[in-house]
């Protein structure tokens, strides 16, 4: 897929900026939908006007956190097919177990260095670009 659409769920605006800047720096032109937390994300998804190909989400968020969002997502008969990838600073074993149990497409630890971050994002995007994703 040349043009993917990502739903990026993150409460920290710098993180959002980082992601957008990274894609831009990498020359990608994929569409980015933004949500500040799980609730906002669900609102967007439930409208079903514009569904993303891939969801990237943080775990620690105010209101509805990442895991709670995942649960809701996986309970929806349609939305549950959208691949969701965790992007977090925490490598908490329990969180990892639970995430994989609920059904995720990846678990990425945010590295400290910005350049390392860009490298990781590049790989993730590249990967999903060679993947077949479900079109809604």
């Amino acid at each position: 897929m040349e043009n993917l659409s990502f739903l990026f769920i993150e409460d920290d605006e710098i993180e959002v900026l980082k992601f957008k800047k990274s894609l831009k720096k990498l020359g990608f032109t994929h569409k980015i939908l933004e949500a500040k937390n799980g609730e906002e994300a669900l609102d967007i998804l439930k409208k079903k006007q514009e569904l993303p190909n891939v969801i990237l989400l943080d775990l620690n968020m105010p209101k509805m956190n990442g895991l709670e969002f995942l649960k809701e997502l996986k309970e929806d008969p349609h939305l549950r097919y959208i691949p969701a990838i965790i992007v977090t600073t925490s490598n908490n074993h329990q969180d990892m177990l639970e995430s994989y149990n609920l059904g995720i497409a990846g678990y990425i630890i945010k590295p400290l260095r910005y350049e390392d971050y860009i490298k990781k994002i590049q790989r993730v995007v590249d990967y999903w670009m060679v993947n077949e994703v479900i079109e809604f």
Partner: protein
Amino acid sequence: MKDTIQALEEALQNEKRAREKAEELLLHRTSELLELREALKVKTREYDMFFDNILDAFIVINPSTGNVIKMNDAAVKLFGYDIKKEPFNLVNIIYKDDFAYAMNSFAQLIQDGTFPNYEARVYTKDKQVKWVQVNSSLIYNEEGQIVGAQGIVRDITESKENAVNFEEQREQLAAIVDNSTLGIVLAQDRKIIKTNKAFEQLIQYSEEELLGLPIESLSFEDGHEESRGLYKQMVDKEIDHYSLQERYRRKDGTSFLSKTNVTGVRDGNGKIKYQLAFVEDITAKHKRRVMLDTLNNLTRSFIGKLTIHDIAWEIANVAAHDLEFEDCVVYLVNKEEKVLEQIAAYGAKVDENKQIVNKIYIPFGKGIVGHVAETGKPELIQDTSKDNRYVVDDKRRLSELAVPIIINDEVIGVIDSENSSKNFFTKEHLRLLVNVANLVSIQLTNANNLERRIAAESENKELLENLKRSNKELRDFAHIVSHDLKSPLRSINALISWFQEDYEHVLDAEAVETFDKLNNKLEQMDALIDGILRYSSVNDKNILAVQKVHIEEVLEEIKTILYIPEHIQFIYPDNLPTINADKTRIKQLFQNLISNAINYIDKEEGKIEVKFTELKTYWKFSISDNGVGISEAYHDKIFKIFQTLDKKGKSTGIGLSIVKKIIELYNGTISLESKEGKGTTFFFKLKK
């Protein structure tokens, strides 16, 4: 001649005739004599036969000498002397105390010719003393002269002794009756006809006062019905005796509790002729019984009572009720206020709802109770009107008993009882209440211990819960904090990068260096946060696996993870074991120690060596380096979290704390040997 011859013949003839006549006469005489003799013989034999055949002893004496001249076999048997073998004089055998009586009696015999029923003692040949009864008379010849004295002697020793025994027994019986501690009453138709001293002392009446009194007039009415019923049963021949408890009234108005055993004495027709009653004063026994029962009841009632308040009510009720106290108040010491509070009571001090009426507080040292609380000594006041310490509570009472309850040498309460009459309380009451107080003390100590144990147990439980909770919270906290701390670090790093990019053209070398230093610090901080995270998760049993860990494999992996510079030689033996543990932890353990070793090697040719020994219950490893070494002063310190000896580098002070924690997780120990400048060897054991 013829004539002469004839004459001679005639003369001869005459003489012959005369001689024949004489002979005939003589013959006649002789035969008469012979007949007489025969008759005499018969008489003598008859006499002897009579003599021999009388069963009683029979003797004949010479009255002028006392020598026995005739005796029968019975006499021989009686006296032991036999005149056929030896002389036997009666005077010699008279019992010395009876001598005068014997002589007088003999004089009487000589005077009167007979002496009936002489009774005295004699010595037999074998020195026995025998009582004899003699009926005697004199024997005269034809001229009326006394030729002998005869007597029939009977041995009355036995009957004499029997008579003595009977008398003795009567005396003994009387002694028993008189000295008996049991009161004995003999009655006819339930009216007293005889009493003994003990009964008279018990009831305080004299025998004269008692004679003729109906038995019932002495005892309390409440027992009469039972007593009459039993007596009727006895009259009806259903029973021969009965026993009952009744209370008797003394002359002075006091009373005593008795156990009375009544036996019926019947006449030939089986009719009750007398009633014999044994009366025992069981007041003391009863009291002891009651006191013992009270103690038992209290002990029972204390079971399960844990507070002084509950116990106090038991004391007030059980003790006062059982002991027939008219009042009982239990006080509790209030140490702060220095007063005694009434916490339980019996009698006038309690209303229907078990509430204490007009509760008063007694200051220490005031009144008898306050005094007892202060001294810790029990007080028995026989007459409160003579004791100026006495404090009137609800009403003035004349005797008082107050006993302290002491725990660990400290008075915690006072049991107090008062009575309207003087001298009501006895030493037994005092002893009993002291025992009750001891019982309370023991029970409260136990209750206290129990309460403390229960409290401690629930506290432990709570602590454990808290610990579990805090452990979990700590873990969660560590993760949240580390996440929240790590995120800004990432943001800062990104912001710095953007700043550098945006202002690349204006930043000089110095600024670039400053940004590099800033990033270094960020990395240090990030490492520290990771360290805390790892440290906090070492104990997390949820992620603790039990698997076969090949140590050699672990070391191989570490070689690929850690950067080991060219100049450092890393050696390990080929006998390394496979142990049961969590691989991640074991790897963490070796990795931390080895990376420390790498970091602190300052020599041109570095060397890190792992060694292994198998002990009986432990795996023992050592990791040595030829690095800078650690001063002995820090040997303990280095295992503590955040302790680092190197402030400049990447060291976080967490690595060795994690090492220690992992080793402790496997019940092992760690120690080190080090020489500054020469190197360090860590020794550690893991339990198999």
